[in-house]
């Protein structure tokens, strides 16, 4: 066996051991080292050269990246998740035909969908969805994400929040927590537009909080421009800040005059 491959495999074993130990710091370090080592394999994307060990190398690299994605969820690092997921993706899409399917594939794809939902990147969410096959859509992990999105769009926010109870995989928990906040932001944005003011009680119900304290804390952190007095929340300030657009009359007049002048010159 290729010595380099052996080295990677050994390092990977140590990495997996570290994960089970929950020693995340050394995990990150090992992972970075692994990635650097992977760059020297010419069979990996984007080159995809045919080497004798290519299948083996590809499978190993895919494993490494899958673990990297899961690790990023565990250490709650969204950026790392995105990075690792994108690097993993070619193994599913481009090399998928050459490799045995990975058991974690749908789980990870579902996680990614969830992440997009959390980050409120709906357009990208649908792009990803379009790329999936119909069998993939049947998978519970994917289905879960799709249903969440539908509820989210309908405005059935309570269903979104309650979906936290029946996640298909324990790794989903992190994103489900984040999703709650996304939902609240959405609601807050709508209320701002819809109402001039709301009583604290209504606001609490609207934002799905259980106590006024939580609500006030949320307002303080996320929407300092809201005003709370006399037991009500006022959204007036936020509205005023939107400047009213002026008609560029002077510019239009100038333009028209110059057209007229040009017309006169036409010979």
């Amino acid at each position, binding site marked *: 066996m290729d010595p380099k491959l052996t080295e990677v495999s050994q390092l990977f074993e140590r990495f997996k051991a570290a994960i089970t130990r929950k020693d995340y710091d050394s995990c990150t370090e090992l992972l*970075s080292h692994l*990635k*650097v080592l992977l*760059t020297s394999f010419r069979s990996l*994307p*984007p*080159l*995809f050269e*045919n080497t004798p060990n290519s299948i083996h190398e590809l499978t190993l690299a895919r494993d490494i990246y899958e673990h990297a994605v899961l690790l990023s969820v565990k250490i709650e690092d969204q*950026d790392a998740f*995105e*990075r*690792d*997921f*994108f*690097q*993993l*993706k*070619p193994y599913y*899409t*481009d*090399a998928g*035909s*050459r490799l045995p399917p990975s058991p974690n594939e749908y789980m990870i794809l579902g996680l990614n969908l969830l992440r997009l939902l959390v980050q409120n990147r709906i357009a990208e969410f649908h792009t990803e969805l379009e790329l999936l096959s119909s069998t993939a859509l049947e998978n519970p992990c994917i289905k879960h994400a799709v249903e969440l999105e539908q509820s989210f769009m309908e405005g059935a926010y309570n269903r979104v929040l309650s979906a936290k109870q029946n996640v298909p995989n324990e790794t989903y928990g992190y994103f489900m927590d984040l999703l709650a906040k996304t939902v609240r932001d959405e609601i807050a944005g709508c209320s701002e537009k819809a109402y001039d003011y709301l009583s604290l009680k209504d606001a609490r119900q609207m934002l799905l909080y259980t106590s006024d304290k939580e609500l006030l804390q949320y307002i303080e952190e996320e929407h300092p421009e809201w005003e709370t007095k006399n037991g009500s929340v006022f959204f007036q300030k936020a509205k005023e800040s939107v400047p009213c657009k002026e008609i560029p009359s002077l510019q239009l007049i100038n333009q028209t005059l110059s057209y007229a002048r040009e017309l006169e*010159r036409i*010979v």
Partner: protein
Amino acid sequence: MAATMVSSAGGLLAMLNESHPSLKLHALSNLNSFVDQFWPEISTSVPIIPLVRESDFLSDGEMELNDGNPCNRESLYEDEEFDQHQRQLAALLVSKVFYYLGELNDSLSYALGAGSLFDVSDDSDYVHTLLAKAIDEYASIKSKAAESNDEAANVDPRLEAIVERMLDKCITDGKYQQAMGIAIECRRLDKLEEAITRSDNIHGTLSYCINVSHSFVNRREYRREVLRLLVKVYQKLPSPDYLSICQCLMFLDEPEGVVSILEKLLRSENKDDALLAFQVAFDLVENEHQAFLLNVRDHLPVPKSLPSESTESAPAQNESTAAAEDVQMTDGTPASNANVRETDPKEVSYAERLNKIRGILSGETSIQLTLQFLYSHNKSDLLILKTIKQSVEMRNSVCHSATIYANAIMHAGTTVDTFLRENLDWLSRATNWAKFSATAGLGVIHRGHLQQGRSLMAPYLPQGGSAGGGSPYSEGGALYALGLIHANHGEGIKQFLRDSLRSTTVEVLNFQVIQHGACLGLGLAALGTADEDIYDDIKNVLYTDNAVAGEAAGISMGLLMVGTASEKAGEMLAYAHETQHEKIIRGLALGIALTVYGREEEADTLIEQMTRDQDPILRYGGMYALALAYSGTANNKAIRQLLHFAVSDVSDDVRRTAVLALGFVLYSEPEQTPRIVSLLSESYNPHVRYGAALAVGISCAGTGLSEAISLLEPLTSDVVDFVRQGALIAMAMVMVQINEANDSRVGTFRRQLEKIILDKHEDTMSKMGAILASGILDAGGRNMTIKLLSKTKHDKITAVVGLAVFSQFWYWYPLIYFISLSFSPTALIGLNYDLKVPKFEFLSHAKPSLFEYPKPTTVPTATSAVKLPTAVLSTSAKAKARAKKEAEQKEKVNNEKTEAAGKGKSSSEKEGDSMQVDTPQEKKAEPEPSFELLTNPARVVPAQEKFIRFLEDSRYVPVKSAPSGFVLLRDLRPNEPEVLSLTDAPSSTQSPAGGSTTGQQGSASAMAVDEEPQPPAPFEYTS
């Protein structure tokens, strides 16, 4: 197994955000190789690409684009571990992305940041595009720096490096022309020199370079620098091309250089070198730069001893005596008076050669030869004139004088005044100014008759002291005529004209008419000499503030100072503001314009001053100034300015002139003009349409350009009479020397002219245009064309000035004669060592019918209601005796024809045939040969030039293979006796086939011409 392909660059882009530097590097280098495929994906992520420092950018354009995520990039590039290589790689990647996005400026600035990673030898679209962009950028920076005279132009050294790398690559690859082009464009004369000296065919590259510098280098100063460099390179060569060097030196106005070269050649033992020197001299003369030529001549040493009958070998003796006579004739030097026995044969031949070259440089040799050629090959069709004369109403003085103009133009330089002699009665109807122009017309006809010009005009000239002999109008006209005869070669006549001008005082009746003529004549004779004394004389005339004389004085001052850009212009401008007379202002305006001829940017202040003036006449002069300062440069700025005035000025005169001026600016690229003025030619304003017509006429003169004809065609039937006039004249200028076989529209046009002239109800204006057009169409006995550029692409200053003043005929008809200055003979005249014309044949590799003379016109049938079949006559008579005889013949034919009228076409054609001397009909029957043998000297029209070949086994070999003009011939068999075909003695009898006109000419000259350029007897036509 099919290779797996990546479908997205997402993974690599994600890798860029990894913290480990080697991962970033890996991602970058991979992205770099996949950018061609994935640039849309990458472009959205440009902000995250780690980049070079901002100070490295040329422009700040990209900042806007990246505003979305600036902090990301900042943080990454400031990473110190991001080494140089990685930065460059990133820059290259971003550059490629911007290239695909079409943002070339940004792309270039990043490519510069990529340093050596940007590989100029790469053969991809990206590299090609960016290189072009880089060179453009560099060139524009350099030229901007040069224009602002800012030596320390802060050119990005990296940009410079790229351009230099490119230049070096071109040179090593052997693409010298590209290298030279880039070097010239970028003002890198050092590189230019390198490219030239390293090229494998130095002569070829040099001549290419000269062409390029004339057609593409816009700034005069810079062009001079390039040419200076070229001269330097030329001189370093082991076998210099003296012809080209001298052309360059002429442009640089360095007569000393030319003189030293000529001297060297003349001193040489080899006869061929002397021939070369003669050829150089002829080529210089062709450019008509009088002041320069005079300078060269004055710098040449005066021959110390004159050749005499030496006791050398017999042929040498003959030659030298022949030459001596020749010199005496041309130069007036007392050459054969020497009884001194010369001992040193070298000195003898040197002195003799010096004399010859002085003769050539003074222009006299070429003028004389041209005169002989035009005389002997005159093919003008008197019948056309006759038709015009008959159809024009007697009392209509405009058409009457137009006919006189047409006659003069038709016979310009041929010395054939048969028509005038035959119609003395008719001519005598010309009174006052018509008389002035009739007399001046003689000057056009005898143009170049330097020796006898004065005696020719003697009967009309003012007689010293005894005023009242002749009419002041004919006296003034005669002075003007003298100017026309001696145009640009006025050495001999200047003094006489000056005296006449001075002696014409206020007491003389109609003194202003004589002054008018004298001023014009003096201006013409002393064209471009900037002679201070003459200037003062003319200024005195101007200050008498007489409208008629002042106008001519203004123009004359301009003629005198052509192209000098002297401060006299300020003086003239001041007077133009002072005077009340519009005529004087107009004359001065044109004069001022003439002074800045060819000065390009130097003239900008003056142009600015004139075009901003309140007075429309001065603005009108400003248009001419623009036209002349930028004549033939096709300078974009000038064109833009002219177009602006053409549509925005309030005065119709200014607008008309602005459009017309376009013709002058664009004459070096005639194909452009129809396109540029096509919109203007459809203007609602007739003045603009008129201007457009003349602009096309001027710039496309003599080209027969199809687009030009298509543009002019509708204008010839315009609703406004003066537009028709302009269009007809312009059309004639375009079609001069084009025959029907070349473009069928020529025939249509000729018939249209005839119709207009015969039509009783036609407006006088367009009728006059038609008459003039028929004159121009057959200019100079059908042997002249209008040429504004010499063969070496130099401006012909006389021609341009002539056309500029000619275009003034709108205001003053006598100025029509200035068009004769722009005529140049279309001939190949081969000369031997003695500057004689030996009999010598060469080949025109085209069907003879393509370039033959137009068929003589048919006799118009008296009963014109029915188109009768007409007989073809040979009516190209040349001598009066011949013409007389022909008149009888014609009568006969007329009789015959009335008989034959009923019989139908075939019979009458037969009749015509029997009359023919040279039977073209018979020739037509057999298939036309694909080539034609021409005999020296021969008419070679411009379009024909590319078909001219010299025969290989010929006795004479040309020094330079030019298809037209004067060509010196090397005699390979010097011991055989030479047969000369153009001599001063009655030539045609000596050489059996003297010229292409066979029997006819022979008989004609045998009958009538005893001594060819003898002054014809004066005739009187006093009313």
